[in-house]
C-alpha cells in the first residue's frame, strides 16, 4: 500500500517538476539545438557506458540513403533513473528515434526519445520520469 502511494505521489511530482539540466561532460554547442529528426531504423549496437551511453542503428534518411547513426544519451546512472537499462535494446530491434543531430551533418546526435518495438517510449531528456526513480 505504501509503495503504491509512493508511486502515485512520485508520479505526480514527476509530471509537475520543471526539466532539470543533467550533469554532462560537454556543452551543447556541437549539436544543432532545437532541430529534431525522427528516424525509423534497426539497432546495430547499444553501448551502456560512461560518460555517455550511445545507440547505433541503421536508418534511411530523407534521400533514401542508408546510414549507420550513433546517438548519445547521458550516463548509465542518470539513464537508469529514467527507466533505461543495459538491456533496453537488442541488435535487430526496430526502433523510431527522435534525435537532435550534430551541426556538421554527420549521422551523429543525441537522443530525445526512442519508440521501442513493444510500443513503449523511452525518454532521454526533460523531466525525469519519477516513477522509475522510486525503487
Amino acid at each position, binding site marked *: 500500500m*505504501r*509503495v503504491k*502511494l*509512493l508511486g502515485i*505521489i*512520485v508520479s*505526480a*511530482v514527476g509530471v*509537475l*517538476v*520543471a526539466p*532539470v*539540466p*543533467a*550533469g*554532462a*561532460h*560537454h*556543452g*551543447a*554547442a*556541437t549539436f544543432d539545438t532545437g532541430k529534431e529528426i525522427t528516424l525509423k531504423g534497426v539497432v546495430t549496437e547499444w*553501448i551502456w*557506458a*560512461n*560518460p*555517455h551511453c*550511445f545507440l*547505433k542503428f541503421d536508418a534511411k534518411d530523407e534521400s533514401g540513403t542508408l546510414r549507420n547513426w*550513433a546517438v*548519445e544519451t547521458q*550516463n*548509465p*546512472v*542518470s539513464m*537508469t*533513473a529514467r527507466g533505461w537499462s543495459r538491456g533496453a535494446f537488442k541488435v535487430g530491434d526496430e526502433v523510431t528515434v527522435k534525435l537532435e543531430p*550534430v551541426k*556538421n551533418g*554527420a*549521422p*551523429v546526435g543525441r537522443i530525445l526519445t526512442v519508440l521501442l518495438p513493444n510500443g513503449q517510449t523511452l525518454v532521454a531528456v526533460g523531466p*525525469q520520469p*519519477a516513477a522509475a*526513480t*522510486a*525503487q
Partner: protein
Amino acid sequence: MAERFVALAIGVVALLTLSSSAAAQTWNFTGMTPAQFKSLPPGGPAPVRDLNGIWDGGPTGVGATGQEAERAAARSPFTPLGEEMARENRPGNGPRKVLVHEINDPLSTLGDPAGFPRIVTFELRAVQITQTPNQVLMLYMFEKRYRVIWTDGRSLPKDPDPRWYGYSVGRWEDDYTFVVETVGLDDRTWIDNDGDPHSTALRVIERYRRVNQNTLELTVTIDDPKIYTKPWLVRNRMPLRLLPPGTDVMEMIPSASEAQAYQQVISSKTK
C-alpha cells in the same frame, strides 16, 4: 496551488523514502530541482561528532549544466602561470568550453581518475562516510573511489610525492563541524569540470557541517597561490542529504575503454 501541491507531495515522498530502506534501493536525489532538494525534511537535531551515513549532493553535487556562471563567479583570478595552464585545458563546460571533439579532459577522454578535489566538485553523487577510531573514510559512488582522512593527530607530510587524491588529515572544529586539510595533489588533474588547473602546491580545506539529522553542508576552499591570486570557494555550503541506510549505491565508473569508445564513435565524428 500547484506549487503547494508539489511541496506537499515532495515532503511526503521524502518522508516515505527516508523512512523506508526497503523501498529505496537505488534512490538518489539527482533528478530533483535544487528547490525540491532543498525542501527535503531536516529530520531531528544533528548528532554530535557524527558524519556516518550515505549522503547525496543532489543536482548541485553533480555539477549539472546551468551552474557554470555561478562557478565562474566564485573563482579567483588566475596568476600568469594559472592563465598559461588554463589555456592548455580544453574543457566541455564553463567559460572556456570547447566543442566536443576539441575536449582534452583527462577524465572523460583518457579515463584518468577525477582526482581530488574534482571528486567533490563534479559528479559528487552518493558518498558513504564511515568513521573509524583513527580515520574518516569517504566512499564515493563516482569512480567507486575512496579517500582516507586521518584523525589520529598526525601531521601532513612536508614534501609529499603528489598523488591523485593527495594526503588528508581531519579534526573536529566543534561538535558539528569536521575540517579536512589535503595537500600533495597531482597537477595532472583539474579542479573542476570547467578545466580550472592547479599546481602541486594546492592546499584544499573541506568543512563538513552537520546541520541536522538529514543535512550536511560542504564548503571547499581552494588555496593555490601559484595558480590563483587568492583562495576561493569552489563549494560554498553545498547541502548533502542523507539517503536511507539500505541504499544500494550504483556503480559509476568512467573506464578508459569506455572513454575511448566514445571518442571513436561519437566525438571524432563531430568535427
